């Protein structure tokens, strides 16, 4: 990678220098990206799930059914807006708005590309960046919970309230796992600004396998694989997507927190859900998949990481992640609520803590000589090995045989029939079989359409 390409990386000093029309343009672009991503995202999801379930999906309105979501949106706008009698009117009105605002605001710190020239202004393709940009993302997602919780409460009926309570518990729990997996990224990158994290992932590491120097991407998804996996799982939980869509579990809660919503307010909730999904994909791309940087085979071309091209790589990565979201929905059944909570608190959280401990340990011995490193890694590894060998076995005791169970019953239990009791065949069965005529069925070919 040459230095001229590296110079394309925006730093924090590059922000806050744009004229007002450029700032406005960037904001409108990010907003339009969110809306367009929703329009196409709903279509994409329905088509992909349709393909997975061997049915066509929407294919009537527009080419490939592309305008189906637009038609649905128009229909929704013209429907009657029902306000339940028991609803808390002001909060009921504000809840979907809070959801949408929080989901869209998070897009403002996502870097879409490197420095480009727009009408003579040298500016980064990102609305803004602050030293704590990733914390801003976390703040947006934690404020977004209010929309759902208040929507559930203000509806004034039982199912929405249950959905709202579920979602608040869910999002708070999974935010913990999410925040902890970002800690590993902060430790490795040394910064919290999104553009800085993308810049830190530029330098590919060299893997030497059998004498060959193999260029591997410097993506944190590979360097910090456990963090990446946990972050993505937490993302799915945070956006209320299947298999973690418990707040709107239709088999239990009708539609969860949005049961009472109709017309445009319902559309706003749908919008915020899809914008949140796209935003979270974009954030995952930024933090773990190298952001707008081209993946390895493309980087052979010198100009891959400069100009407007990186936006293409960025959108490609985001679409791939959205596909994973849809894929999960098409594949996995919904979890039960206690299983879901156990996964969050008893699996993701401890693994994350141990991983951060290991990572910080590895980072602190980075500068030591080889002998010191061997000792520092060897002693904990040895202790771990000994602990695993001598750990008391949790394997369940072998189940006693039936005879043993019968013998160990206390005095005075129910009498049991003998274990080798043979039940004689019913005479009725033989008669029915004898009287029935053999069925006259001709086997057809398998390929025939039914």
């Amino acid at each position, binding site marked *: 990678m040459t230095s001229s390409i590296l110079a394309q990386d925006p730093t924090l000093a590059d*922000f806050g220098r744009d004229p007002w029309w450029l700032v406005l343009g960037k904001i409108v672009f990010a907003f339009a990206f969110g809306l367009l991503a929703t329009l196409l995202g709903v279509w994409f999801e329905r088509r992909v799930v349709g393909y997975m379930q061997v049915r066509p999906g929407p294919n009537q309105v527009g080419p490939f059914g592309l305008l189906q979501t637009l038609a649905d949106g128009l229909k929704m706008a013209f429907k009657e807006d029902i306000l339940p009698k028991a609803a808390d009117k002001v909060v009921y009105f504000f809840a979907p708005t809070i959801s949408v605002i929080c989901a869209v605001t998070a897009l403002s710190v996502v870097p879409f590309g490197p420095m480009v020239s727009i009408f003579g202004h040298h500016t980064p393709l990102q609305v803004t960046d602050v*030293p*704590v940009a990733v914390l*801003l993302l976390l703040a947006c997602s934690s*404020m977004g919970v209010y929309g759902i919780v208040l929507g559930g409460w203000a509806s004034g009926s039982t199912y929405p309230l249950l959905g709202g309570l579920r979602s608040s518990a869910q999002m708070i729990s999974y935010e913990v796992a999410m925040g902890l997996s970002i800690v590993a990224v902060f430790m490795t990158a040394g910064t919290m600004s999104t553009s800085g994290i993308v810049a830190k992932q530029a330098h590919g590491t060299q893997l030497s396998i059998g004498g060959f120097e193999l260029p591997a991407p410097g993506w944190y998804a590979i360097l910090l694989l456990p963090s990446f996996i946990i972050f993505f799982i937490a993302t799915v939980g945070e956006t209320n997507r299947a298999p973690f869509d418990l707040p709107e579990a239709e088999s239990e809660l009708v539609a969860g927190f949005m049961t009472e919503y109709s017309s445009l307010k319902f559309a706003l909730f749908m919008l915020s859900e899809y914008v949140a999904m796209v935003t979270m994909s974009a954030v995952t791309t930024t933090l773990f998949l190298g952001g707008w940087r081209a993946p390895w085979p493309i980087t052979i071309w010198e100009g891959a990481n400069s100009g407007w091209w990186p936006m293409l790589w960025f959108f490609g990565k985001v679409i791939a992640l959205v596909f994973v979201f849809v894929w999960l929905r098409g594949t996995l059944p919904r979890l039960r609520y206690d299983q879901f909570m156990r996964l969050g608190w008893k699996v993701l959280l401890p693994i994350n803590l141990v991983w951060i401990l290991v990572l910080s340990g590895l980072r602190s011995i980075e500068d030591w000589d080889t002998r010191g490193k061997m000792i520092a890694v060897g002693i904990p590894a040895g202790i771990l090995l000994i602990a695993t060998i001598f750990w008391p076995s949790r394997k369940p005791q072998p189940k006693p045989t039936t005879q043993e169970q019968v013998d160990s019953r206390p005095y005075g239990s129910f009498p049991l029939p003998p274990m080798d009791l043979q039940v004689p065949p019913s005479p009725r069965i033989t008669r029915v079989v004898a009287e029935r005529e053999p069925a006259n069925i001709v086997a057809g070919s398998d390929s025939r359409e039914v």
Partner: protein
Amino acid sequence: MTTSTVLAAAGGVSGGEEVTFWILGPLALIGAIGMVAARNAVHSALWLVLTMLCLGVFYVLQAGPFIGMVQIIVYTGAIMMLFLFVLMLVGRDSTDSLIETLRGQRVAAIVLGLGFAGLVGGALYRALEGTTAVGLEQANAEGNVQGIARLLFTKYVFAFELTSALLITAAVGAMVLAHVERRKQDKVDQVSTMRARFAPGNYPGPKPGPGVFATSSSVATPARLPDGRLSERSTPDILPVRELTAQETTLKGTDQR
């Protein structure tokens, strides 16, 4: 360092900062007043959320982006959410009663509150008038987050760890108080269940349902046992036993043929 950080470090007040302050300041004040004045507990919590959000933005304006974001994530996002959680479980119709138990208490509280606010505001204004903030640039020299981290994990590490130990103790204490574990000997096995069932004085069969062999479909009508007696056990204890008289059970003559 962004432009606003640089400006705040220099002690100046930019136009944007002033505009933001004069928009968000009144909003924060309205939120605080609304929190006290709102009848509904959830509305009260929401007003407080508004105030906290404004405070978070103020911290960011004052060149403390980290503390601002933490204010929004921890206080607004997590702690107020837990408050809401409890309030929603209490029920949406629980509003304050307006009956004054102490006469004149409300007026006295308002007057005292205004007086206290005036005193604090006046004292702060007199004390800080004309002074300029110094040392912000040095504190934020290597970045706001790094500066806070350096102080927190060197000079104040003991206080920090002590606070976290206190919080963990509180959490563990709450869990110990709330958690009930069933002992092993409390479990009854099949044999002792059956012994209790067939013990003298206990009727081992299922209880008759209300209305069995009865003359009415009411739950208050006791069932009849096979020998014709009424069974008291078939009706709930709180219901008075009601047996229809012969006059009530005869046909009313409405089914004219």
